């Protein structure tokens, strides 16, 4: 009867030696697969040289004019961490996070950080009246009047904040808001990887 019971109640799992054998197979095949799927140096460099509006890629270059009439090219800021904030006066969270962006600008300007507000589709007068007059910002405000840069960066919600490191590579994109100062500081600390001494 005992033997019959053993026949009926077979062990529920494969025997231990099966799993130990698999360990050996996994180790051998695994090492081979790791070696086979190593990333060639060229592939890393190829990916890193691409520009795209996403994390890990070089930020797409653009030329825009500030509300003061100064022309600014993003690639000219290479070597400095950049915070790119896409916003508009009609977007409810945008004015709420503006003071935090201004505080960030004041706090991190000595470390070379540049904060750029990119207004989406509004006139100089509207932007100036709102940002300079009502909110009291002092960081550069760019005018993306035809929304071309917004679409280039695939901005689908306002505000959208892009954090670009010294190499010009996008390290983080924060969709929506309002962001507060601690959240901005956390992201900026990532792009200020090696904090230079204050210039002042």
């Amino acid at each position, binding site marked *: 009867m005992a033997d019959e019971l053993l026949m009926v109640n077979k062990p529920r799992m494969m025997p231990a030696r099966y799993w*130990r054998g698999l360990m050996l197979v996994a180790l051998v095949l695994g090492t081979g697969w790791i070696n086979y799927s*190593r*990333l060639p140096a060229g*592939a890393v460099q190829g990916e890193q040289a691409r520009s795209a509006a996403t994390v890990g890629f070089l930020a797409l270059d653009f030329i825009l004019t500030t509300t003061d009439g100064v022309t600014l090219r993003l690639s000219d800021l290479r070597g400095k961490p950049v915070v790119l904030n896409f916003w508009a006066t009609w977007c409810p969270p945008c004015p709420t996070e503006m003071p935090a962006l201004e505080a960030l600008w004041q706090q991190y300007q000595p470390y070379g950080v540049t904060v750029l507000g990119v207004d989406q589709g509004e006139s100089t007068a509207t932007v100036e009246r709102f940002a300079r007059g009502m909110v009291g910002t002092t960081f550069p405000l760019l005018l993306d009047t035809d929304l071309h840069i917004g679409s280039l960066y695939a901005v689908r919600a306002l505000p959208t904040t892009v954090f670009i490191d010294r190499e010009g590579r996008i390290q983080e994109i924060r969709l929506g808001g309002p962001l507060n100062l601690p959240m901005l500081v956390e992201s900026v600390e990532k792009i200020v990887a090696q904090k230079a001494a204050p210039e002042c």
Partner: protein
Amino acid sequence: MWPVISFAGLTISSNLLAAVGSLLVGSELALRAITRLAPPEKQAGWSQAFNQAFWSAFLMGLAGARVSFALRFYRLYLDALQLLWSPRPGALDTGPGLVIAVIVFLLWVRRKRVPLAGAADASAVGAAGALAVLSLGRFATGAGYGSPTDVPWGVDLWGVQRHPVQLYEFGAAVLVAATLWQKLAGALPGELFWRFLLYASLSEFVLAAFRANPATWVLGIRVSQVVALALLLVALYALAFFAQMDKGAQAETAQNVRATDDSVASVRR
């Protein structure tokens, strides 16, 4: 890419949607699994205790993640305490939050006398379901994108045809969830947890090769593959241990029956 989804005048981040979806799918699957794992007389009790443990762990983990983030920037928060209530997911420390959630979950199931092995097995089934939903979210946002390819099913992302690696991950996670679900009946306590670790690490180990721009060590070795291989070996070792236990239990049963056979025979004689 769909980093945000707009409908009915609302714009919602795909990441947030995937996080909520994975939470709901994961908790539902885990709850159904614990009900099937429990003995009939304890089904209601285990199910209720597991549900409470899960949501308590989630809420405490969330609070822990928030407080941990605030502590890192305590000077800024001291100036404006109202910022602590910000609901933005970006202001969370996931690592400490996860640790707190696991501790709360373990304490809760222990307090309610739900066997740890059963809770771990049910969680494994839930985790597989949650991973599937998260993969879809990553596909929507383009996070963890694939390497360039010319396969016919490649997707165009940032001007390059790429492996839809997040969809591969989705398929693998669904397969893992289905396999674990099928093994719910008849598995040894704790076995499903180790099987989940085995299948999930195997999936990561294989699919990581199709991901672009990964973290690498010397000679271009992908970090995630090495970690996945280590976890895979741990899971196999644990399963070998389970098999040994199972064989021992079977042998013991047979020995007991043999002893009973002998005594019955001697009485008959």
